[in-house]
């Protein structure tokens, strides 16, 4: 009974989300909608790290490596093919391949913890340095000029699949980006409900026990890492589609830091939390940028410190715990599409993250 109720509730939430994505262009202004498109692209990036960190227990300091690779892969092939259809696929495949190579190196070397952090961080720095030094005419791939520090301007944006001359309007771009966010969310939700997802969480909880039960933690972690790299690559393509521009700062450390902040604020070990955290923080940063009184670093830093010290679980798990206490259980599930994660899993995420 309870299971069926929760399924119905989740279906309702999904339908509501689809309706919201569909009607938003008619309700708000163009500028706000463009901003929402950016937030949605970033939220896809947030989901990619939320998945490997929150459920796989792998804290990557270099998620922007895959994000940036996706962005560049999209931009380079879009300039060459003048068609976004193969470019989007490449933006998913190339980061996934890169994640496969890097992940093989990391997980089959049984590197974990801080050491994994150092490797992912340095890989990002290598990419940043290399791409940053590609100014000049000799650095071109096909027709695409890499442009070094200045990046690649005027990248063709998305078009209707296989019709290169039918470029998507801002509304259609929003539908694609919002739809991609919802799609990735549902994909990860589904994966976590399947036995495969349980194995990922099992490896996070106790690697030795999982391997004694016959699962190879290295392989599980590698596959998790590849999936997350592919999602981050997709986010990169969506981001480039939003701005029609890609530059080396897409690999920057500060963006890597920001993803971690989104997840810490929203709630590690959930999927809804990082999306909420991402939109909230990005909105705050955009708001601060529009006025002169405060420095955005100052606010972001203060927010992160306060959350780690006072609210280490993050917004969504805390809100869920509060709701659970206030109202009977079934209603709480209706409010949160994430209701399936038992509170114990959310509470133990810190142990898993280390």
């Amino acid at each position, binding site marked *: 009974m309870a299971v069926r109720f929760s399924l119905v509730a989740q279906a309702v939430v999904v339908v509501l989300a689809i309706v919201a994505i569909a009607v938003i262009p008619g309700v708000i202004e163009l500028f706000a909608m463009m901003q929402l498109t950016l937030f949605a692209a970033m939220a896809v990036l947030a989901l990619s790290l939320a998945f490997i960190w929150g459920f796989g227990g792998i804290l990557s300091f270099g998620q922007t490596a895959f994000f940036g690779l996706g962005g560049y892969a999209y931009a380079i092939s879009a300039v060459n093919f003048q068609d976004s259809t193969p470019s989007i696929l490449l933006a998913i495949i190339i980061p996934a391949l890169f994640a496969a190579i890097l992940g093989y*190196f990391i997980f089959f070397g049984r590197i974990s913890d801080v050491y994994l*952090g*150092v*490797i992912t961080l340095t890989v990002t720095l290598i990419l940043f*340095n290399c791409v940053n030094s590609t100014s000049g005419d000799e650095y071109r791939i096909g027709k695409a000029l890499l442009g070094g520090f200045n990046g690649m301007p005027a990248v063709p944006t998305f078009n209707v699949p296989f019709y290169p001359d039918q470029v998507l309007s801002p509304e259609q771009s929003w539908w694609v980006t919002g739809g991609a966010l919802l799609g990735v969310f549902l994909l990860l939700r589904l994966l976590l409900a399947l036995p495969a997802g349980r194995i990922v969480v099992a490896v996070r909880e106790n690697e030795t026990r999982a391997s004694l039960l016959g699962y190879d933690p290295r392989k599980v972690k590698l596959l998790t890492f590849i999936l997350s790299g592919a999602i981050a690559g997709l986010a990169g393509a969506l981001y480039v589609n939003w701005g029609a521009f890609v530059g080396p700062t897409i690999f920057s450390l500060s963006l890597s830091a920001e993803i971690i902040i989104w997840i810490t604020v929203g709630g590690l070990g959930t999927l809804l939390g990082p999306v909420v955290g991402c939109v909230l923080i990005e909105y705050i940063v955009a708001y601060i940028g529009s006025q002169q009184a405060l420095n955005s670093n100052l606010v972001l*830093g203060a927010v992160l410190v306060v959350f*780690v*010290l006072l609210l280490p679980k993050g917004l969504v798990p805390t809100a869920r715990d509060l709701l659970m206490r206030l109202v009977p259980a079934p209603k709480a599930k209706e409010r949160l599409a994430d209701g399936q994660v038992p509170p114990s899993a959310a509470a133990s995420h*810190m142990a898993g993250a280390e």
Partner: protein
Amino acid sequence: MAIYLIVALDVLNGISSLFLLCLGLAIIFGMMKIINLAHGEFIMLGAYATVISANAGVNIWIAMLIVAPLFVGLVGLIIERCLIRFLYGRLVDSMLATWGLSLLIIGIITTIYGNTQQGVPTPLGGFSIGSYQSSYYTLFLAGMAIAMMALVYGVMRYTRWGLIARATMQNPAMAATLGVNPTRVYMSTFAIGAAITGLAGGLVAPVSGITPGMGGAYVAKAFMTVVGGGAAMLSGTMSAASLFGAVNQVGAYFTTPVYGEVLVFMAAIVLIRLLPQGISGRFFKGNL
């Protein structure tokens, strides 16, 4: 011939500045297993303290060697009391909180001094080898690196305080039953680590552009060197700094400075893959 001497000097410079920049982080990581990602901002604070006091008329040597470490040591003490002490034993949380702290410090300094570059002139003159120029400051940095190494080694190895600190590092509970107060040891260790970082910031102030965001250039390298060096804070950091400093300078000599950096990062990745416990996890076990 002269060119080899110059490259050798560059390598020496690379190693000694990397060692100085990492030592504070290595002490904090080695003693307390806290990764301080605000390390770059401690360097930045040291550099600002130096520049501001030197421009206010303080002798540059006093500003570098006394004002910078004192100021950053104090800041470290305050930060340990207000933030770090809640995070012992929570490695990931401590990284997140100190990352937040680094953004906060950058924000504060940007708000006060603006996002502009400051600087002080490099003291000591230059000398020439053949047709190449070098500066005495390079030699001074190398001397400082050796002096700091000797000082830390001497304090840790031969003084009562060093004995207590090492005991607390090995087994806090046992040290506490023998009458040591681990909280005080942690507090002072963090402050000393911060002070050494401040000193490093003061020392690099004359040879680098000083902006609120300058710490970002150092933190990744320092993080990498300390982790690559492993648990032994002196021998590990020294060996990793020698390796990375040399790779960086020699790589930069044969290619471009950018690829020199890239080579260092690759060396770090290979090193961690081959020696997952860091250099000292394999070669200098049990050393300082």
